[in-house]
């Protein structure tokens, strides 16, 4: 009687041992990759939707495209703008004509030489309605771009032409001093005409892949990895020969895989692990501020949020420092202006009540609401929309708590990211959490409140003085003059309490401490070409 169970257990143990043994013999150990000095494994925030620079839409695709292509300008290891495919450039005095001198040693990864015509083809393809590029408007400062994109004008009408193989001339419809910055985005990258004409939409398949960046596409296994190989025809040699970008959606999984040495760099991990990481992975932990703005937006087209005193009272009752230091506790910086404080060369205009003590602010806010007709018997009731997730819930609950001190009753409504922003664009909300990440350019943020910008002005904010001042700024050809005009515009919007700036977000990364050439920067951009193992 007693023999059999023991026998069974022994047999089962044998089977398990064999299965494990065979699997470890037939496949390379997961830790082996760790020891190769020319391989880098990075976590990416999700699965890229495309690697076509003209069809891309996501930040996580920008990360990959930065390694695969090089535009006229590019980044250095610290995120500064430096010459890329162009070695120099000049601007006409009216700011409307930009002439780029290309490097003469440019080659595609298949060895074909890359000329100004390739850039002309690329800029035209971006605006071609058949490409259906969702970010075509990134380059709508080019002469005739909107009309070409609508199909009203032929591609040749676009403000781009080659003057010989190494000179590219861009003509703009309005001055755009941030052009060098805009050229960093994949929408301005060259694409291989010879490959696209041969393979059509299949040019993006690994087998047909041709690009001009430090790396080429070796393999794309959806949901598993995008594998890149060093491009032998790039302008300079690189140290890392093989790069794997693994889509890791689950932050906890990213954290575990980093601890288990399966990944060398991860872009984010759960806030709850921050304490553990500080203690155990201190030499890997990199916290940095991201150029971004998280804010609350009032729907100014629906009462009572069309009334300035109501918006002002709600704004004054929010203590940004509590949100960052006590609620989020993950290195986010409190924000008091709509344009991020991290912008270079621009001094943002702060909310008028920034330096007033919180108790005093609450008293003023209560008075404002009382004057607007709200009382204990007839309190202000509102709905606050936010994106689902732990951080979103914590922040918005805290805000509801702050408003409760004014007697305001808040109902929280949450939805997934896509649904949330769809509702916001339709103006289907009262007060909502929103966020904007992006360029080192105050206009990028301030135009969100321009009355004719479209659905992205979620709260349908309308202020004729503000619109007029933005137009003044957009007519300036120098960045300094433009920023000065933008400051005046920001003062208007801050005093109108159209939005409540909350905080700029931070990036929690873990980077293998042996990796060299990794520098934190506000754009959170890290091209692999600058990295190396000791």
């Amino acid at each position: 009687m007693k023999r059999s169970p023991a026998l069974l257990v022994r047999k089962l143990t044998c089977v398990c041992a064999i299965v494990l043994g065979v699997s470890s013999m037939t496949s390379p150990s997961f830790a082996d990759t760790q020891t190769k000095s020319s391989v880098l494994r990075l976590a990416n925030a999700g699965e890229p939707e495309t690697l076509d620079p003209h069809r891309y839409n996501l930040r996580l695709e920008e990360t990959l495209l930065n390694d695969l292509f090089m535009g006229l300008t590019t980044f250095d290891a610290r995120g500064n703008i430096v010459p890329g495919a162009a070695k120099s450039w000049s601007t006409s005095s009216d700011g409307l004509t930009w002439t780029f001198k290309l490097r003469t040693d440019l080659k595609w990864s298949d060895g074909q030489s890359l000329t100004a015509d390739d850039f002309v083809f690329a800029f035209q393809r971006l605006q071609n309605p058949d490409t259906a590029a969702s970010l075509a408007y990134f380059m709508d400062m080019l002469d005739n771009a909107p009309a070409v994109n609508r199909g009203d004008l032929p591609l040749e009408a676009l403000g781009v032409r080659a003057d010989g193989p190494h000179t590219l001339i861009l003509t703009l419809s309005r001055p755009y001093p941030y052009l060098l910055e805009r050229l960093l985005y994949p929408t301005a990258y060259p694409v291989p005409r010879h490959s696209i004409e041969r393979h059509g939409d299949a040019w993006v398949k690994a087998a047909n892949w041709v690009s001009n960046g430090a790396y080429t596409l070796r393999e794309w296994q959806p949901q598993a990895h995008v594998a890149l190989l060093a491009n032998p025809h790039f302008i300079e040699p690189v140290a890392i020969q093989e790069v794997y970008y693994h889509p890791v959606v689950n932050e906890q999984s990213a954290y575990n895989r980093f601890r288990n040495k399966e990944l060398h760099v991860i872009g984010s991990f759960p806030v709850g692990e921050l304490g553990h990481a500080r203690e155990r992975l201190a030499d890997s932990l990199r916290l940095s501020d991201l150029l971004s703005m998280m804010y609350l937006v009032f729907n100014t087209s629906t009462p009572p949020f069309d009334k300035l005193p109501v918006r002002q009272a709600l704004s004054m009752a929010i203590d940004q420092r509590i949100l960052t230091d006590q609620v989020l506790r993950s290195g986010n910086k409190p924000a008091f202006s709509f344009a991020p404080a991290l912008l270079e060369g621009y001094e943002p205009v702060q909310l008028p009540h920034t330096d007033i003590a919180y108790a005093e602010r609450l008293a003023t806010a209560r008075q404002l609401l009382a004057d607007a007709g709200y009382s204990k018997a007839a309190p202000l009731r509102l709905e606050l929309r936010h994106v689902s997730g732990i951080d979103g819930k914590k922040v918005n609950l805290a805000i509801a708590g702050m408003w409760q001190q004014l007697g305001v009753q808040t109902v929280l409504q949450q939805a997934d990211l896509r649904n949330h922003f769809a509702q916001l664009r339709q103006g289907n909300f009262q007060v909502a959490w929103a966020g904007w990440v992006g360029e080192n350019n105050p206009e990028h943020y301030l135009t969100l409140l321009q009355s004719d910008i479209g659905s992205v002005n979620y709260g349908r904010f309308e202020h004729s003085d503000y619109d007029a001042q933005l137009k003044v700024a957009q007519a300036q050809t120098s960045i300094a003059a433009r920023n000065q005009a933008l400051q005046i515009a920001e003062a208007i919007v801050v005093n109108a309490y159209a939005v409540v700036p909350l905080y700029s977000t931070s990036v929690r990364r873990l980077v293998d401490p042996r990796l060299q050439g990794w520098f934190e920067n506000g754009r959170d951009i890290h091209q692999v070409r600058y990295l190396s193992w000791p």
Partner: protein
Amino acid sequence: MAGYLFKRTFFAFATFLVVVSAVFFLLRAAPGGPFDGERRLPPDIEANLQAAYHLDEPLAQQYARYLGNLAQGDLGPSFRQKDFSVSELIALGLPTSVLLGLSALAIAVLVGTGVGIAASLSPGSGMDRSLMALNNVSIAVPTIVTAPALVLLFAVILTWLPAGGSGSLQHFVLPAIALALPYAAAVARLIRGAMIEAAAETHVLTARAKGLSQARIIRRHMLPIAAVPLISFLGPTAAGLLTGSVVVEQIFDLPGIGRYFVQGALARDYTLVMGVVVVYSSAILSFNLLVDLAYGWLDPRIRAA
């Protein structure tokens, strides 16, 4: 039998059509579209995109177009994974899901049978009670809890196995165990009951009286009887393991079609979600159809009904 076969197949096909149609319209009723993101889309550009994917057509026309393409085996282009067609994505992801499902099925049957037999040898004993208690825990604790616990123990603390990702068979060990646990427990329960019943059968008592060894009695005389309920359990289990991998694939970053399903739904990738639904529903319906047919084959009373 031909009439029965025709009827069953017809109902399976009708169910398939209902499922595909329901998912088609439900997806489009969900707020937010495939081209909504954090960044703004000017109206002209949105119009270009909508036209490129036929989203500007009336819903009825889109539905007819989808069914027409489906009849030709064309699942369409993925809305979000613009560089792949849905068929390509499924062809890339299905092997992972099938390998995961099969490994889990093997673990569930082997471990479940072993534990079931061990527990049935002396019903009510300490061994039986502790095994069955462990069993109840395996059934009650969801995968979303067991999977991270397995990762913590075997990947993070012991560093024997990878915490996630793919690329080698080792990457499948923890996910397959996590997926198999509740099914193994169910199999164990089934086998234990059937074995206890089989022990009371007269031919088993005869075998014992003849002085055959315990191992031989179990193998030759008890297991064949106890395996009958297991076989009918395998149909739905195989379907369950294939479709149940959605959570496990998410937790372990495995590139199977379950992960496409979740990512596709969040991204409102209509065609990708539809494609996975087509695969899942055909798998479930085929398994059920096979079981139905097998029953009909075995039991003429069902055929007549």
